[in-house]
């Protein structure tokens, strides 16, 4: 395992190293120490590298990730794994706002809590949050799955499109066009798969499913209150 201290190496040098070894098809392992809240740590990785980050990171850790497996043993700032395309990102602590924003693929696991707008604008990513999420999570979520094992804050799934949200606790309130839907056997199976991949054991009976009522898909006078 290669070890890099961000006390001695810049984020730019680190990211260049992480990208430089990712094209040979192997899965080298890296350990990053002393992140001290640095931004854009392990952002833009393109290959199947494994990265373990010991400590707290700032904004956009693992942003736009492709294929890499990144674990943060700490908390993370805004926009962790934003626009992720593939791979897996695991946060052992809490995540700030906009976790997994506009993610297109892969899996983001937040073992602690997530701040507001978790999964905003998500486009195919799967997000599993062990704790609770802040307000407007799943805002304009287009596709993919958002699993919240704890409680969800206000305006969950506001203006949601075709993404699916599972909540194990309570939802403080639902946003525009977000409704509760039947938890079918197919959805229980999908939820079980998501939780298994995230390494979380949960009682499936606690979970409820939310999605789009599809009432705002076309401009219409009857929807004026929601625009």
């Amino acid at each position, binding site marked *: 395992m290669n070890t890099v201290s961000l006390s001695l190496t810049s984020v730019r040098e680190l990211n260049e190293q992480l990208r430089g070894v990712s094209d040979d098809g192997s899965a080298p392992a890296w350990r990053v120490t002393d992140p001290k809240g640095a931004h854009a740590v392990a952002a833009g990785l393109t290959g199947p590298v494994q990265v373990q980050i010991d400590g707290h990171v700032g*904004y956009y850790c693992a942003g736009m990730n492709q294929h890499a497996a990144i674990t943060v043993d700490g908390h993370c700032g805004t926009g962790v794994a934003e626009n992720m*395309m593939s791979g897996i990102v695991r946060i052992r602590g809490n995540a700030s706002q906009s976790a997994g924003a506009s993610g297109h693929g892969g899996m983001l696991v937040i073992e602690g809590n997530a701040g507001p707008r978790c999964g905003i604008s998500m486009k195919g990513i799967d997000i599993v949050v062990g704790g609770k999420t802040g307000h407007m999570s799943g805002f304009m979520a287009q*596709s993919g799955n958002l699993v919240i094992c704890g409680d969800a804050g206000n305006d969950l799934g506001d203006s949601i499109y075709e993404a699916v949200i599972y909540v194990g606790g309570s939802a403080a309130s639902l946003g525009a066009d977000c409704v509760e839907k039947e938890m079918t056997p197919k959805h229980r199976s999908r939820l079980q798969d998501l939780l298994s991949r995230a390494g979380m054991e949960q009682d499936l009976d606690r979970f409820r499913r939310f999605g789009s009522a599809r009432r705002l*898909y076309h401009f219409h006078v009857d929807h004026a209150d929601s625009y």
Partner: protein
Amino acid sequence: MAVVDPRGLRPSHTFPAHVLAEIHRAADQGVYEIRGFGTKRPLPGFDDLVFLGASMSRYPLEGYRERCDTGVTLGTRFASRPIELKIPITIAGMSFGALGANAKEAIGRACTAMGTSSTTGDGGMTEEERQSSETLVYQVLPSRYGMNPDDLRRADAIEIVVGQGAKPGGGGVLLGQKITERVAGMRDLPEGIDQRSACRHPDWTGPDDLAIKIQELREVTGWEKPVYVKIGASRPTYDVALAVKAGADVIVLDGMQGGTAATQDVFIEHVGIPTLPALRQAVEALQSLDVHREVQLVVSGGIRSGADVAKALALGADAVSIGSAAMVALGCNKAVHLEDYQAIGTEPGYCHHCHTGRCPVGVTTQDPVLEARLRPEQGARWLRNYLTAMVLELQTIARANGKSHVLNLEPEDMAALTVEAAAMAGIPLAGTNWIPGRG
């Protein structure tokens, strides 16, 4: 001889025919009007300025012989690979979805031939435009539709869109009739829905966040590519300063005359300020930070001719960007296929029906029959001709003012024809030394 109506019929100035029609439409439908194109109301603009030309104190350059260079470099501040353009006229971001694939390809081909750049748009990068456009600017928009780090890396520059002149503070709209299978697939949306683009970025708010976002984009792309920040003209003094602070290489300023494929009419006509005052404020902001020319300024919104380009450059812009005018060069509002204009309730010269997807000339449509009316080769030729004519006009004016490079044009070369333009542009009223507000 005018016919006098014996009944003395008199239209209302407050309620002219188009206002009456809009009230009737709103009463019928109960929802705002959504349309394309740009502002239709009269606004102070570049037509309110003139160049002084050479005189006893300044001598001109020979029109067809002496050199008048037009090349510009964008992104010299931080990027390791700045953009070199042969002409200071670029093509603004217009999405695949708003425009058809043939229009995007035509634009790319024309830009490559002219040595300038084209820009992607909401919905991401298509293979056609990447292949056809040698220099392609990749927009990072609030919606993040089609946002892909691989495309980011194969772009030549990155443009973070904060706002748009037609609708500063608002997101775009693409009505269901234009959300075809391909467009829907690129945007991860269901086919046929009315798509509402986000007005705010999902993962940053404010200039401090933007600085970190720019850092991330540079990390993802190896610090090679210029990062532009595009703002709608609302508070350019502050917005330009904040974009500079956030680390932009280039500012793109879009005035309220800028076009759109679809948004609320009330947005187009009533939000934002015209290009003329916004440009002056932006230049002053750059000068106050001592980064004018170090951070390049690209201006858009109502640029139609080489004269407009010359005036924008003389006011301090480094380049301009055109969108609506490029569409017109491709055939927008041309008097052909008249029955198809009438079918959507309009006429050539009045059409703003980009939002319907029924563009009679095949520019803003996804309909294969309509789109086939614009062949990429023909469209590229038209746009190339138009850009060539603009550059010749620009050089004509520059030489007449004694400039061997178009970027040497300066405010002192101009006079204003109206008090309003004098005040907004900071140019003396013609025949005086008076700039309103400056004593």
